[in-house]
């Protein structure tokens, strides 16, 4: 009788452990997907800044328009949503570099730099980049939790059964607000 009770208790304990491990694993997996979606949404906001930058520079006759064309052509290539994370990071970092080149060129042009539309746009850039930075950190934190669950017992058992692998954190470039203006 005692032996039966021990067996039943062991089965119950094992079932609870499996259930808890599985739920915990699924929770981390979903958290990771959610964090990645948030990151994509924030990057989309960055893409929306490019047409606005193009509007700012169109009044200048001397501006290097090829910079805007290069950035626009990057956007017209495959969207970040279609790419796997590593390729998405490379693609997004190219866009970030393009935006930096455009804003640096604007900063060299006194008339454009002091224009009200560029001043407003700089605030938007600072805001969007702050949100991208937060999303990147949230995603990387979710990656760390996910990788821990893949490599640590007991969730590692499910990970090996489902043939899941480690995910690398993203190394996205976030534009520093060095050219941002202050209200005062």
């Amino acid at each position: 009788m005692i032996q039966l009770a021990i067996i039943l208790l062991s089965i119950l304990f094992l079932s609870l452990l499996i259930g808890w491990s599985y739920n915990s694993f699924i929770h981390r997996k979903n958290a990771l997907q959610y964090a990645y979606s948030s990151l994509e949404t924030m990057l989309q906001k960055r893409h929306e800044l490019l047409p606005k930058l193009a509007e700012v520079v169109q009044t200048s006759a001397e501006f290097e328009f090829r910079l805007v064309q290069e950035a626009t052509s990057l956007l017209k290539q495959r969207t970040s949503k279609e790419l796997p994370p590593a390729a998405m990071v490379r693609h997004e970092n190219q866009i970030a570099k393009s935006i930096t080149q455009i804003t640096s060129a604007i900063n060299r042009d006194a008339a454009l730099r002091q224009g009200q539309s560029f001043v407003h746009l700089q605030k938007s850039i600072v805001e969007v980049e702050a949100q991208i930075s937060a999303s990147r950190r949230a995603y990387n934190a979710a990656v760390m939790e996910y990788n821990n669950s893949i490599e640590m017992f007991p969730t590692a058992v499910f990970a090996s059964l489902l043939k899941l692998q480690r995910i690398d954190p993203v190394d996205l470039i976030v534009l520093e607000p060095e050219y941002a203006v202050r209200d005062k």
Partner: protein
Amino acid sequence: MYKPKVELLHKVRPKLVELELQRKETLKARRKTEWTALLLVIVGIALIVLLTTYSGEHVVSALLFGSFTCIGIAVYYLRTARLKAKDELQQSIGNVITEAMEGNWSYKADRHLRPGLVKRSGLVAKSRPIYGNNLIKGEHGDTKFSFSNINISSEGKDGRSDLFGGILVAIDFNKELKGKTLVFPDLAQNALGPWLGKKVQSFGWAGLDLVYLEDPIFEKAFAVYGSDQVEARYILTPHMMSNMTRLRERYGDRLSFSFMQGTVFVAIEYERSFESDLKVPILPEGTFYHFYKSIDLVTDVIDHLQLNTRIWSK
């Protein structure tokens, strides 16, 4: 506008000297009244003793009853007058100092932050009555703030125990937020160790999830709970985390923070804003100093958190 101590003292000194004279006169008058009352009580007792010798029991009982009633009324009157004088002095000192700050500064000795606002902060228990006083509203640079003493206690079988006692500050915050992020001193990890402490914290706080941040010094000092992992990191940038760590180094484990749409709340436990006392001189290091200390503390918190820096528009 906030002013350094020396500049403020230079500006308010003449008016505070007048109030100091007023305080001394009030104190003198109060002592005179108290001595008179005491003398009357002694004379009354002497009369009762004399009458006890020559009169019947009924007369003595009536006299005793009458005497004790008179003493009760006198004590009540003296106590009320003393508190009124103290409150008036406190309000006068506060008025002088807040007027000297210029701009939209105000002081109400008998008011405190609205209970709705205190509860909204999420830093203190929701279902308890809230008491407080010394409400100060002001501006530091472009940043508006208000703060007051707040006391929250619970009545249990073993009597009354304090849940929170200190200053609660509400400061304008210039980031667009949809959720709530709370930052508490990390008492669990310090008491139970990093692994067990984190496990305990992972159950969350009032429906908010634990947010694990990458700055190890900040993580060791604070526990963060938020309704949105991304928004918590949007607020707690590496720069903000290092600012908050510096504040902790300065003021210890007494600070808690709450960020939500339009406002950042900072709770500073065990810190009382100024309380005047008729027996304590106003100048140089008396009531004025206590008042200034609380304003200086709040503006120091605003400076450390760099809430005056606006590189984005609200």
